[in-house]
């Protein structure tokens, strides 16, 4: 999650099916949430964001690694449980494997849940024999008293098997060595053949082979299965009707054939696991069950969820205060230094650079950055432990009542980190209707960039001397409001333009894992902070300059800024805000974190105040410009519910492929914001 430089930048090339020029091309496949991305990162040194919930990798990523003189190009495929159906991830994974672009496939498995994983391994073995099975999470398995007989597994599968702990370099080297041997063909793989009922085997042998680059048995199986969509995707002709009539005569309807084909790998996986796995401690999953009883309990579930959220906010607020003070001091020093340097420069240059660009950027960094730099890693930790799917489990019923998918709770949670990432994450939802619901309502929850603004508002106007605990509680309530509105908007959409019944859904609740605290903290803090710093410089500095120019160009009897401000004033007043705030929201389209700094700059330009340091000074500025507590409430509401930032909008355009849906994603939250602000103003104004 998170649009960190490495997850969207040029390092992780989001090009599926790209065939590299030199070196071996290797595909990384596996069930969701088995540590594929972690292994990918360890092997390539890239930092793809990983987390403990199924469906994390929603696009294929490519990376390079070396062993000796050999170069390997790795393609991280989206996690799938199977390769038989038509969800987008399965299609991506299947078409890549069938295209023959990969010389070998590394299938990553979870040692603590091997049987479920073997189903996919067996299906892949039907597509290609050049498979290396990497049994990951061996350390977790040992802790739970699960023993996997790796040589036995290798013998039963007919392909090499390595045990691994994906985040360890040593494991990565072992995987590469085995891969090297596999590519050299020593020993050649003899993949096990999935047996099917006798009548089906007979029918298979009756099908004439056709000319196809795919494995002959795989081709026959798919033709026998006769799914028209699948045959079209693979470019295969339909099977001779005689074969099917033959099966029918043997008492097998097409439905029964399909069932038997699906059951084949499942039953073989069961038999293999019975032979190669021993459980040495009977209560191996007891810890997880106990945790689940608390975290998803009837009463405790909700309490823990709200409590945990409030606790995270508390940590964020307290930590951000310290960080903020330090940064503020640093930027003040910087400003004195720059003022000294530019002492002789013309007034307009000084104003443009210092009062415009520098101050806005400094403000964004000092006030907006700290909460983001703290909240994001904390949230990532929760994700790493495996708590997010439990939230989705707890919140499924309300989403179900809105005819939506339970996984929408998961993408909503991602939205707390970054709405654009949340929108991309919606790919885990299979049904197009439910996916659209999730995409359109994602920006109803405040992203990381909006939290600092919410915190600043709450601190200045509603906490008094209440302290961080009170702030955290209020912020939790604000977030609860945003979740409630998400549900309302979802309900509204599914009652009007996106009508339909909720489709079936199965959510995996993965085993809890010890989080990799150190690496998560360092990685997400640095990545995130650097990313935000970059964006702040790219957006805040020009915005600051534009603002300064607008504030200093005389037009009629004021400046351009006052003119624009007074133009927007009636609309702003009508919403319980003012013209400047609306202008700030408009200019803040590229990044929500610059809204408050822009508003302040605009006020300061008008009043030619010179200094602003801590929040209570900011509050004085706002009060001097006619703010009341009602204004702050409207500001809170409008911050929660207004148009998504430009990055999110572009992402929505990319994901939905339509400007119309993008426009709706713009209008829907804005409409909610306007309505709520208006109602509040009528009641309390």
């Amino acid at each position, binding site marked *: 999650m998170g649009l960190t430089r490495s997850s969207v930048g040029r390092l992780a090339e989001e090009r599926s099916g790209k065939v590299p020029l030199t070196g071996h091309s290797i595909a990384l496949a596996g069930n969701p949430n088995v540590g594929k991305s972690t292994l990918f990162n360890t092997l390539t040194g890239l930092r793809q964001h990983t987390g403990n919930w199924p469906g994390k990798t929603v696009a294929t990523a490519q990376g390079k690694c070396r062993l000796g003189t050999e170069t390997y190009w790795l393609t991280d495929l989206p996690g799938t*449980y*199977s390769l*038989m*159906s*038509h969800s987008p991830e399965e299609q991506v994974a299947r078409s890549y494997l069938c295209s023959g672009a990969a010389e070998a496939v590394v299938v990553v498995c979870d040692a*603590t*849940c*091997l*049987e*479920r994983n073997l*189903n996919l391994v067996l299906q892949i073995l039907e597509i290609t024999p050049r498979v290396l099975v990497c049994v990951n999470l061996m350390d977790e398995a040992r802790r739970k008293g699960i023993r996997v007989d790796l040589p036995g597994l290798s013998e039963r599968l007919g392909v090499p098997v390595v045990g691994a702990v994906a985040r360890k370099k040593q494991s990565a080297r072992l995987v590469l060595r085995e891969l090297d041997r596999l590519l050299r063909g020593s020993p050649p793989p003899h993949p096990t053949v999935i047996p099917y009922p006798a009548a089906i085997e007979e029918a298979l042998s009756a099908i004439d082979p056709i000319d196809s680059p795919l494995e002959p048995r795989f081709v026959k199986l798919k033709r026998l299965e006769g799914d028209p969509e699948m045959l079209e995707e693979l470019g295969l002709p339909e099977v001779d009707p005689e074969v099917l009539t033959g099966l029918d005569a043997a008492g097998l309807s097409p*439905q029964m054939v*399909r*069932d038997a084909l*699906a*059951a084949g790998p*499942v*039953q073989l*996986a*069961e038999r293999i696991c019975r032979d190669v796995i021993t*459980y040495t401690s*009977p209560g*191996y999953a007891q810890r*997880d*069950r106990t945790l*689940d*009883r608390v975290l*998803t*309990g*009837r*009463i405790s*579930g*909700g309490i823990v969820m709200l409590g945990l959220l409030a606790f995270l906010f508390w940590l964020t607020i307290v930590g951000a205060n310290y960080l903020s003070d330090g940064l503020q001091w640093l930027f003040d020093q910087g400003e004195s230094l720059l003022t000294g340097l530019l002492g002789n420069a013309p007034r307009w240059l000084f104003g443009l650079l210092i009062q415009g660009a520098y101050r806005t950027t400094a403000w964004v960094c000092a006030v907006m950055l700290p909460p983001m730099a703290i909240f994001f890693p904390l949230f990532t930790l929760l994700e790493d432990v495996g708590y997010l799917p439990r939230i989705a*489990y*707890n919140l*499924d*019923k*309300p989403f*179900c009542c809105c005819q939506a998918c*339970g996984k929408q709770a998961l993408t909503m949670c991602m939205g707390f980190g970054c709405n654009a990432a949340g929108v991309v994450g919606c790919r885990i939802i299979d049904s197009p209707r439910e996916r659209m619901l999730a995409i359109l309502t994602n920006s109803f929850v405040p992203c990381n960039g909006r939290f600092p603004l919410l915190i600043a508002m709450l601190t200045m106007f509603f906490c008094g001397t209440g302290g961080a605990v009170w702030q955290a509680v209020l912020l939790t309530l604000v977030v609860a409001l945003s979740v409630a509105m998400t549900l309302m908007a979802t309900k509204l959409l599914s009652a009007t333009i996106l009508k339909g019944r*909720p489709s*079936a*859904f*199965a*959510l*995996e*609740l*993965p*085993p809890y894992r010890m989080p990799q605290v150190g690496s998560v903290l360092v990685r997400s803090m640095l990545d995130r902070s650097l990313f935000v710093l970059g964006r702040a410089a790219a957006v805040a500095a020009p915005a600051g300059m534009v603002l300064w120019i607008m504030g200093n160009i005389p037009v009629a009897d004021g400046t351009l800024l006052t003119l624009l401000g007074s133009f927007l004033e009636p609309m702003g007043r009508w919403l319980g805000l003012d013209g400047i705030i609306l202008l700030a929201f408009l200019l803040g389209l590229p990044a929500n974190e610059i809204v408050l700094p822009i508003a302040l700059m605009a006020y300061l330009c008008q009043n030619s105040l010179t200094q602003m340091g801590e929040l209570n000074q900011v509050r004085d500025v706002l009060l001097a410009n006619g703010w009341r507590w009602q204004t702050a409430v409207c500001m809170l509401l409008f911050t929660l519910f207004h148009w998504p930032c430009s990055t999110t909008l572009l992402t929505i355009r990319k994901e939905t492929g339509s400007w119309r849906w993008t426009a709706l994603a713009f209008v829907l939250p804005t409409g909610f914001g306007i309505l709520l602000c208006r109602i509040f103003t009528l009641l309390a104004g």
Partner: protein
Amino acid sequence: MLRLCDIAPGQGACVCGLATQGRMRRRLLELGLVDGTIVECLGRSPWGDPSAFLIRGAVIALRKADCAGILVQPEEQEAAPWD
């Protein structure tokens, strides 16, 4: 014969058929819910739906409407994967 949604938390059951068609049937089979599979209900979410099931070593949450299509035979004894 019962439906999977009738199985109480803590109770085990053995799958003996699927009463759904098409895509859903496929999904359930891929989860490993073929005839003879032992399933245990682990609990229900705070709102009473969905429920969590232990299926072939994995914990999967299924909505009531979806597990109504899974026919099961209740087990007398609790399912224990280490037997």
